[in-house]
């Protein structure tokens, strides 16, 4: 197992992989927000569907 | 210009439609002088801006190629923006859709008209450029060949993008936005060929053949692509 030199190079490599992870998590966050919006809308429509025919 | 009874007569061959549209466009341009003088004035003004922006009174090599080509490209965008305005306002698109003619005839005609405008522009802009900035006019001959190939590429991509942009909301913005990245390879090849032609010590021809090849490839590919997809652009 090669030693990991914690010099300048290490910071750049870590930075690159961190950017990758950050973008991925950002994507997840955005999709989560979208999913929340969809769920909210679905709930609202379900409510409307239930009371609609009854009204 | 009536089409007659479709059943009694043969459909207009694409060539005749092409010639008719091209002739109409050139006639209108000659009469109204909308695009070409504007492009020429724009080019000369841009040259003056560059003179001061770069603080140079003489240019050669890569600077000369860059200034000339960038100016021509931006001037071309002016014409490209206006290419289909008349068609949109006067129902030219509908006419083509109804006529028993391949939509590609419209594309070819408009692209050809654009080439004519660009050639006319270059008749003014290139001598003006040489007059302002060049010490020797020796490289201009072969440069014309380069410019013709550039014009063909500009016409192919410009006409395609213009047709799409004209049917959108931000049409004046969309053309430069989409067109400029598409024109980068054209610019690379044209500058590659023009640089040695405008070199200080006299025209050189390094890689001239290679760059002409790339230009031709660009023209061929985009002309083919545009020709192939154009009917979808015209669809209502």
């Amino acid at each position, binding site marked *: 197992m090669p030693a990991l030199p914690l*010099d300048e190079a290490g910071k750049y490599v870590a930075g690159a992989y961190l*950017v990758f992870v950050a973008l991925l998590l950002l994507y997840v966050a955005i999709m989560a927000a979208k999913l929340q919006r969809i769920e909210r809308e679905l709930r609202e429509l379900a409510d409307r569907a239930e009371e609609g025919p009854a009204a | 210009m009536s089409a007659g009874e479709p059943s009694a007569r043969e459909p207009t061959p694409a060539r005749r439609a092409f010639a008719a549209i091209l002739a109409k466009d050139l006639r209108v341009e000659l009469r109204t002088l909308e695009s070409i003088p504007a492009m020429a004035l724009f080019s000369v003004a841009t040259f003056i801006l560059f003179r001061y922006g770069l603080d140079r009174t003489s240019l050669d090599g890569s600077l000369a190629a860059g200034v000339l080509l960038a100016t021509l490209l931006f001037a071309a965008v002016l014409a490209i923006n206006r290419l289909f305005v008349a068609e949109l306002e006067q129902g030219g698109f509908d006419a083509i859709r109804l006529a028993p003619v391949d939509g590609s005839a419209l594309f070819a005609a408009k692209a050809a008209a654009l080439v004519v405008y660009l050639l006319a522009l270059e008749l003014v802009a290139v001598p003006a450029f040489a007059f302002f900035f060049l010490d020797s006019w020796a490289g201009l001959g072969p440069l014309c060949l380069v410019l013709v190939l550039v014009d063909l590429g500009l016409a192919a991509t410009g006409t*395609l993008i213009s047709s799409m942009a004209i049917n959108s909301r931000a049409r004046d913005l969309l053309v430069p936005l989409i067109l400029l990245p598409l024109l*980068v*390879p054209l610019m*690379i090849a044209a500058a590659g060929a023009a640089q040695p032609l405008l070199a200080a010590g006299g025209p050189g021809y390094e890689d001239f053949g290679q760059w002409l090849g790339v230009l031709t490839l660009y023209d061929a590919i*985009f002309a083919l692509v545009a020709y192939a997809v154009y009917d979808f652009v015209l669809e209502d």
Partner: protein
Amino acid sequence: MYPKGLRTLALATVATLVAGFALVFYFAPLDADQGFIQKIFYLHVPMAIVALVGWVVAAFWAIRHLRSGDSAHDARSYIAIHVSVIFGVAVLITGAIWARAAWGHWWSWDEPTLVSFLIVFLLYCTYYPLRYAIEDRERQARYASVFAITAGAFVPLNFIAVRLAESLVHPRTFATAEGGMPTKMWITFLVCFAGIGLLWVTLARFELSAKSTSANLARLRRALDGDAPERPSAGRPTATVPVRATQS
């Protein structure tokens, strides 16, 4: 239809990526020229290749869309471009980091692959304003497909032009996995490439699933509102492809 297998796909992606990154840091040998910095290669290059392939795939979906008129193909084309653009952002950022680490500046015009990629990325960024600017849904989809095909033809041409323009002064230790790479590096690269490729497919499937859900939601809302049913079209996804609703 889309969620089926999405979980398996995502798990496979995670497994492959973790394996790949483990190989990068525990298995792959140090590069003779660049040392530790070269490790960025295993992240940057697979993403670039996958993004480019994604854009070409989008062109194929666009061709199918124009041929069949089925808006499902348009949705796939749109998403292929969208996911590749996201990957493109990562490519450019990691490329800049790599350039800074290797050469001291955040950008290098001498690296033809990176420059070519920037130009292509810029072109595909204009895809969004093009779609937003056209209101009519069908026309928007059609023009988007025309754009995707044109841009797909552009990618190889641009690469050739940029490659020719750069005098290859800098030794090409970078970029594409050319000859001279030891086997261990190759293996690591391939595993990372597979992982990134799976990631692209996972994200694309995910997006498609979200899009079709939104579309069905819109259908449900319209049905509940009692509006006249829209023109039926196979696979509604274009309903949520960016169409700016206007008051006109």
